[in-house]
Structure formats: C-alpha cells, structure tokens
C-alpha cells in the first residue's frame, strides 16, 4: 500500500490534473490553441464534452468501492472524494453551458424544458441530487452526519441511473453508447446488491484491519475510509 504521503503528494495532485484535462481541452479549443477547435457547433461540443465527462466520472466514482475490493487496493477510496467532486463540477458545467450558452438565459424556455421534457427533467433531478452530496463531502460534514452520511451518499446509485437515462433519452437513433454505460452501472450496482444480500456478513467492513495505526492515519488524512458508497 502506498504511504499516505505518496497518496497526498503524488496520487492526488496527479488525479487532479488528470480530471482537469477535459476542462483544459475545452478552453484550448475555445481559444484555438495548437490547432484545436470546437468545430461547427461549439455550444453543442462544449455541452457534450462536459456532459460526457460528468457521466464518466460519476461511473468511475461508483466503481471505486468494487475496484478496491476486486483488486485489493484499499487506498483507492481516498481518491473517491476528488472523483466525485469533479463529476459534480462537470455536471454543473454541463448544466451552465445549457443555461447560458444554449438557452441564453431564456427563462420561459428553460423552465418549460425542465418541466416538460422528460430527459431534461431527469438530468436536472440528477443535478439536484448531487448538490447535497457535494455539500456534505467535507471531513467536518462527514463527522457531523456520522452514519447518516453513508445513507445520504447512497443516492449516487440513483443519480448514476438517472444520468444514464438522461443520456439514453436524448440520443436520436443509436443507443449503443448509453446502453454500454447502463451495463457498467448495473454491474457496479449488482455487485453491491450481491455483497449486501441477506445472510451474508459484510466482508469488507468486518475484515479486521491489519495495521490499525496506518488505518487511523489514513482516516485522519481523508476522513473517508468507510465502505459504501
């Protein structure tokens, strides 16, 4: 297991840079740096890029716990908050692009779309559900909420399904890609359901911690070593 210092000084900054690449790619393209371009329909391009990365990062966040258990990488959980917050960031950017650039703050159209267009209603619901998760992502909030924190953050299961549905519903003819996302999300959720099936001890939670000192240290650093979500 990498030391907490390596995680803090190397893994986390590296992940931060990695997660910022989609944003930077949009900025580069907007200023046409190095021949990059947003293409013929720049607003659509920005909106799609942010939406795609919001969804990808949501699914990656959802995959952290299963990956940790499948590959025995306990430290992976310490990267989860950053992944989740970046997912939230891209979803918000996706929404803001729609609000400002696509709709141009045309409120009657915006409100009508949110109320009347099921795929927009679904996307907007997912965004609203993400807000409390982002707000309660700090160590302080985790401590304050205690056990309720975990139940609250389980709403990511629903959010991921809504996000895939939102994507599926706006595709015109070829639904292959959204269905791939759906399959991945169902595997990640199915595995959790299987782990939590009645009569089965919660392996990860009940597994004795081999090195309590290290564990506590990690807990202090991240405040975030709980099992699910």
């Amino acid at each position: 297991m990498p030391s907490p210092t390596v995680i803090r000084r190397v893994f986390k900054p590296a992940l931060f840079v990695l997660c910022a690449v989609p944003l930077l790619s949009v900025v580069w393209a907007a200023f046409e740096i190095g021949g990059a371009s947003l293409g013929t329909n720049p607003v659509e391009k920005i909106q799609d890029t942010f939406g795609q990365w919001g969804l990808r990062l949501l699914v990656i966040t959802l995959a952290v716990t299963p990956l940790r258990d499948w590959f025995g990488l306990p430290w992976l959980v310490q990267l989860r908050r950053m992944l989740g917050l970046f997912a939230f960031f891209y979803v918000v950017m996706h929404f803001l692009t729609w609000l400002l650039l696509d709709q141009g703050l045309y409120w009657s159209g915006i409100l009508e779309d949110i109320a009347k267009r099921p795929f927009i209603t679904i996307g907007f619901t997912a965004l609203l559900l993400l807000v409390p998760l982002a707000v309660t992502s700090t160590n302080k909030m985790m401590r304050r909420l205690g056990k309720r924190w975990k139940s609250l953050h389980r709403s990511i299961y629903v959010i991921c399904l809504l996000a895939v549905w939102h994507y599926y519903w706006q595709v015109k003819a070829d639904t292959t890609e959204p269905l791939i996302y759906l399959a991945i999300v169902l595997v990640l959720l199915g595995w959790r359901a299987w782990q939590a099936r009645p009569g089965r001890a919660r392996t990860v939670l009940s597994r004795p911690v081999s090195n309590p000192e290290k564990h506590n240290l990690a807990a202090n650093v991240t405040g975030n070593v709980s099992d699910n979500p």
Partner: protein
Amino acid sequence: MLIRRFRPGDSADIRPSEITSESVYLNRRKLLQAALATGVTGIGAAWTHDAAAVTDLKAQRNAKYSLSDPPNSYEDITTYNNFYEFGLDKGAPAANSGRFKPAPWTVTVKGEAENTGTFAFEDLIKPHPIEERVYRLRCVEAWSMVIPWDGVPLAAALKQFKPTSKAKYVAFKTVYRPDEMPGQRGRSLQWPYVEGLRIDEAMHPLSFLAIGLYGRTLPNQNGAPLRLVTPWKYGFKGIKSIVEINFTQKQPPTTWNISAPHEYGFYANVNPKVDHPRWSQARERKIGSGLFGSRVPTLMFNGYEQEVASLYRGMDLKKYY
C-alpha cells in the same frame, strides 16, 4: 490536401481556374485520353467525374426563391452533416465518404408514370437550366443553416416522366452500398433510406433537386450526386444520393417514421408549435452564430409559410406532424 475556405458571398466569384489549376486539368485530360485509348473505361468514368466535380455549375440565382440572409460557410455546410449512411457523428459523413462513388449514376423511375425506366444522371439534369437557391435548412434537432444550393426544380425533373393522375405520392430511395457507406453496415436505421412527398408537395415550386452547393457539384457527405431539398420541412426529409423515384397511389413509408413513429411523421413540416416529444421546436440554434449566439425563434414552415401554408389548409398539423 488544402481545402479552400469559402466565405459567404464568395460563390459568384469562383472560377474553375481558382479551384483546379490549368495544368492539373490538362494532366487529367491526358490521363483520360490515355485511359480511353487503352480501353480502361472504368477509370475513364472516374476521371470524368473527378473533372466534373470541380466545374463551375454556372447556376443562375433564382432571386424569388433565395434568402438575403448570409449563407453558412462551405466548411460548415460540408463538415457538419447528418448522413447516417456514413456514421452517426456530425463529422462522420465528411470523414467516411471518401470511398463513395457518385459517378456513373443512374436513377430508376417507376410507378404511376408514362415515362419510366432507368435514366443516367446527366440525362435527368441536362434538359434543365441549373438554378441557385439560397434556402434555410432546419434540422429536427433544432439547429439551422443557410445553404446556397444548385440544382433544378423537382417539378421540372418529375414532369419529364409524365406522372399519371393516379400518382398521388412520390417515393424516393437512397442508394444501398454498404461497402462504400460504412453506416449501412450498422443498424442505426433501416436501410436503404426512403422518403416521400405528396404529389402536390413534390410539384411545389420550392421543392428542389440539388446537385451542387456553392457552385460546385455536391460533396459526397451532402448527398452526391443528387438529393432532395424541401426547405419548409425538417432536414431529414431531404433524402440524399437518390437512386429511385416511384410514383405511388398510397402514402409511402419513410425511414424516420419507421424508426420512431411518434417522433417523426410523414409530413415533418417545420412547426414551432408542435414540439418533438423529447425537445422543443420553438427555437433553434443558427450554426455559425458562435459561442454566444443563443437560439432564435423558429418560424412557421421555416419561414416559407406564405408559399406552402395552402398545401395544408384544413389539416390538423398536430395530428399530421
């Protein structure tokens, strides 16, 4: 390869000499002659078309049916396309249509007409003067462009087949060539693509058979060598790379209607008051308006209400969407 970037208003100034240098022309001619001399007619045909592809179509602008709005750039029009036969992304048709061969080309005409049979593309077009028409194109996805098409009025082209009084509809079919059209190897839609118009819609002076844009023959990604343009209808009615015209008594099936009947109707008239079940049709994004050009209101019949409203008098356009 260098692609010349056209700007609005360029079209009138383009001479063939600007597009293909004389030496290239002459070389082509030599190759063509050599090919013919050695009897390699297949190659000859390809070269003939290649030469045709750079010719100035010498179209006369039809002012009555042309907008004064500035047209989109040649680049916008030829790199942002929905042509699922070549792939699903907007850039896919430009990227994947290089192997498509629009010449030689024939169109089969059948059904309720006196003059049916298989006709060479050149014979269909040659009797008619080429017009330029600057039309709005409104996609069902709520974006729009302004395009300077070159071609002939559909009515003039159809009349040469002498449709009979039994011809109530006209059905069109796109070519089916999965080896040249990679999208046809997938199942995003049912192939070949089919479309249709009521006969009075087809004979309307706005209905147009385009063979070019910006004075040049149609690029493959825009539906070479000939495609339908009905500017008051959503773009998907504008069937591309047409190989069959069928005069029918009954309303013919249409591809998007088969794919999603409650979302795409036979008529598909642009109508800001009838929304797509999943999104609003009230406003549209004008391609080329940049990052901060927000949506503009969509006009009834895409702004051609005066010309075409009478075709649909008494019809419930919510029902016949």
